[in-house]
């Protein structure tokens, strides 16, 4: 057993938790973040990557629209490397009522979301694949963001301010001392060791899993309902700008270019368990139909991977504390001292990736208030590590780098241009990481071949590192193949069938990977 202590324990390593731990650390608190898995492994990493201009909410949720517009500019500045300023369009397709655009434009003006009405010709010139039958279009400042990079850079910033980030630490209990939070008990999933953290304050940022955490502290019935949505990555950028449908927010209304792919999203289905989200065939079909509306021929384009994420939607009648200063639409802060009579615990849920920094600011303000302290938030003023040069991501980035290191380094993942150097450096940082952990930072196996050529290379290189023996390396390879398949089989049609057949020829046919000696059950951690 190991005992640690910190002013604040942040539970949850998604965008909210990373934003919160950065914020508390920058305000001078000692802080520890714990997550049962890797950073950004939950909802943060399972969405479409849109950095909202606010345009999506100008009618349905004006307050959120304004917040998005403001935060968009801040994030693009402080986390420049994670953000691509793609720009975006709202387009009325032939099944949409173009006159709704008037309402939209009024909303955008009122909410101060920057926009400009542009001609259909201009849209088609910039984005030749967009449906030529669109009748009206507005240009907005949408961008795309790499959620993993966003989370990791926020966490790295927190570390510079003394915070500890403990991934693969599952919270098993929260001990109270009378009406106060006293200790967070975790299990180190990699070693099995129990870790106790003495603390005065717990910020519950576990999002869709937040109800489970609150329950451990003896605060029952916090209902965070997972709202599941599926996303599908297409093999290459069908558009280089974000394309939104000019309608009231609905399913399948957006196409977002992120890195080398573009992502169509999303659906909204109530789920029972955020750890078991299904990607139903009819939802895939629905996305395809929506894609056809935006880009004709979408069904013939190549889908390479699908995933589902769980929006954390708070349904709690006792939320209305009357203190709306800390509340904004779309994000909910539950003060358990008011709700349950427990001091030192705040639960935050809801919100959007775009406004994650603001959510953190709000919840940390609420904490300071409860503690009776006044420490101002500084997270909007300072670049995270790696983004000091304020240069935004551009799609050509890796190709240009490769042009310079092609005589010095091997490429392991050819689709996403991940080099051996990148991989071995990441292994040094995360010696216990599995290939999916490394993938989220390096894009290993995320291109068209979905690991068909790089999985074996990654295994071999990992084995050459000091910490990994052949059983673990082989287990990691098996786990990676299995995990990739989870996102492949629901969209297995068209060109991806050819790829899968070739990948099967390689792994099962040539390498006979099925017949490797055990462990037959892949290592989970």
């Amino acid at each position, binding site marked *: 057993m190991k005992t640690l202590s910190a002013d604040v324990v942040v539970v949850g390593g998604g965008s909210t938790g990373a934003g919160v731990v950065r914020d508390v650390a920058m305000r001078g608190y000692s802080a520890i973040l714990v997550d049962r898995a890797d950073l950004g492994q939950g909802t943060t990493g399972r969405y479409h990557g849109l950095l909202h201009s606010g345009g999506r909410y100008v009618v349905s949720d004006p307050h959120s629209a304004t917040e998005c517009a403001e935060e968009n500019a801040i994030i693009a500045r402080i986390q420049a490397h994670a953000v691509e300023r793609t720009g975006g369009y709202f387009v009325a397709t032939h099944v949409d009522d173009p006159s709704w655009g008037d309402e939209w434009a009024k909303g955008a003006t009122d909410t101060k979301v920057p926009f400009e009405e542009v001609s259909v010709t201009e849209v088609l010139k910039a984005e030749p694949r967009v449906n030529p039958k669109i009748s009206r279009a507005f240009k907005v400042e949408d961008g795309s963001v790499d959620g993993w990079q966003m989370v990791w850079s926020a966490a790295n910033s927190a570390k510079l301010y003394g915070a500890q980030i403990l991934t693969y630490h599952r919270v098993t209990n929260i001990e109270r001392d009378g009406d106060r939070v006293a200790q967070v008990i975790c299990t180190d999933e990699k070693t099995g060791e129990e870790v106790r953290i003495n603390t005065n304050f717990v910020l519950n940022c576990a999002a869709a899993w937040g109800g489970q955490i609150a329950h451990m502290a003896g605060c029952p019935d916090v209902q965070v309902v997972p709202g599941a949505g599926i996303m599908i990555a297409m093999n290459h950028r069908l558009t280089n700008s974000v394309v939104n449908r000019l309608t009231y927010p609905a399913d399948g209304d957006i196409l977002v270019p992120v890195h080398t792919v573009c992502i169509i999203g999303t659906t909204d289905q109530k789920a029972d368990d955020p750890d078991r989200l299904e990607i139903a065939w009819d939802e895939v079909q629905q996305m*395809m139909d929506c894609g056809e509306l935006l880009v004709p021929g979408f069904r013939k384009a190549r889908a390479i991977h699908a995933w589902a994420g769980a929006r954390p939607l708070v349904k709690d009648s006792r939320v209305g504390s009357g203190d709306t200063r800390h509340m904004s639409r779309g994000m909910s802060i539950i003060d358990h001292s008011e709700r349950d009579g427990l001091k030192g615990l705040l639960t935050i849920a809801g919100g959007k990736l775009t406004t994650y920094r603001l959510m953190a600011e709000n919840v940390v303000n609420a904490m300071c208030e409860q503690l009776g302290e006044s420490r101002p938030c500084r997270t909007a003023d300072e670049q995270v590590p790696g983004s000091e040069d304020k240069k935004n991501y551009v799609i050509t980035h890796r190709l240009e780098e490769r042009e310079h290191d092609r005589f010095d380094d091997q490429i392991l993942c050819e689709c996403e241009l991940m080099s051996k150097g990148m991989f071995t450096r990441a292994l040094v940082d995360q010696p216990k990481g599995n290939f999916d952990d490394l993938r989220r930072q390096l894009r290993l196996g995320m291109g068209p071949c979905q690991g068909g050529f790089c999985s*074996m290379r990654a295994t*071999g290189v990992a084995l050459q590192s000091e910490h990994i023996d052949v059983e673990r*390396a082989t287990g990691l390879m098996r786990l990676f193949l299995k995990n990739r398949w989870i996102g492949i089989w629901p969209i297995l049609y068209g060109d991806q069938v*050819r790829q899968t*057949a070739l990948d099967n020829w390689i792994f099962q*046919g040539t390498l*006979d990977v099925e017949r490797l*000696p055990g462990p037959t059950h892949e290592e989970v951690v």
Partner: protein
Amino acid sequence: MTRVVVIGAGPAGLVAAIRLAEGGARVALLNKGTGGLQLGQGTLDILGYGPDRVERPLDALAGFAEAHPGHPYGVLPADLVARSANYLRDLVGPALLVGDAASNLQLPTAVGAVRPTALASPSMTAGACVDGARFVIVGLRQLKDFYPELVVGNLVRTDLPGGGRLQARAAMLDLPAREGEIDSTGLTYARALDDPAYRKRFAQAVKAVVEPGETVGLPAVLGLDDHNAWSEVAEAIGAPVFEIPLPPPSVPGMRLNRALTARAKAAGVRVVPGSKVTGFRASGGAVDSVQLATAGGDRDFVADAFVLATGGFESGALTADSYHNVHESVFDLPLRRPEGHLVHGDYWGDPQPLFTIGVEVDEQMLVRHPGGDPVYTNLYAAGGILAGATRWQEKSGEGIAVASAVRAADSILAAAATATDQGAAS
């Protein structure tokens, strides 16, 4: 002279074309691109798992076919498979394929699994995984598709098919294939090793890490055009050497592909690469011609018989669209398709139903309606397009390909002979 169009240049198409041309037919071989041989492991599989590991594939075939209704081996008897495997072996010669179709070799893969195959390149057979073997597996720092530690680590903890264990250790060489190149493919090494001077340097570098009594395992890059390169390397090292096949590009596969393509041309086959067959004309229950979409427009290829050897899903011979409608892409032939959803989510589970879809043939290899009569009187199919096999799991790909190709070719030649006899008689 009977005219035959063969579509597809994988093992089935090449073997069918050669056999037809050598049997006196005038053959055009139409292929969209390079065939699948050079993507495979460069050996001839007949049956490796059924699903248990198979030691004597020919003996196992009848039982396997019985246990797998609708499998291509149901219409390809063991003696045909044996003859066909030997036919291919003789076509490419002992420099490229050796072994006995009746008995499987157990050879190491590039991740250290022990893989069964029937015929293999002579450059591979010293790698037979038997009790007490002593291997040193040697990798090259500039070659990213081969990690000796992985091969060794898995081989040494494997209970061998014949019982017992083997010993192995790993060694790594820092030897670029070309000056200044850090990211070389196996093919680049193979080309370098075609050069006797490089070969000598290579062998010296390997020799330095070999200990007495060890057999040397190397990535399968020991020469492309020079089929003796591997044995010269072995001689220079002074130890037995074996090649381990890599993921594509597969040098042993390229050797086979080149040898068979050259053989086809020498036999008089007109090879037309690079264009896709996009249409056909049929009348009176027979296919009259296919249309080849060349750069300048469609060109008609008229023939008396047609062999469809286009492969499976990997080549696009079979396509599944976003609604999971599945089509055969040249003739839109009726397919045998399992009931229910075509894909499931268990990567390590049962074979995916999707990949068992294909065309059904009769014993002559005439394409037939599933369970019914031939679709056309002169359309034959061979290889990966045939329904019912999951070749990569069974390790049955080349066996099915060559046997169905030989049978299709022989059926066509026999039909032509009959027609000629009847013509002469009348």
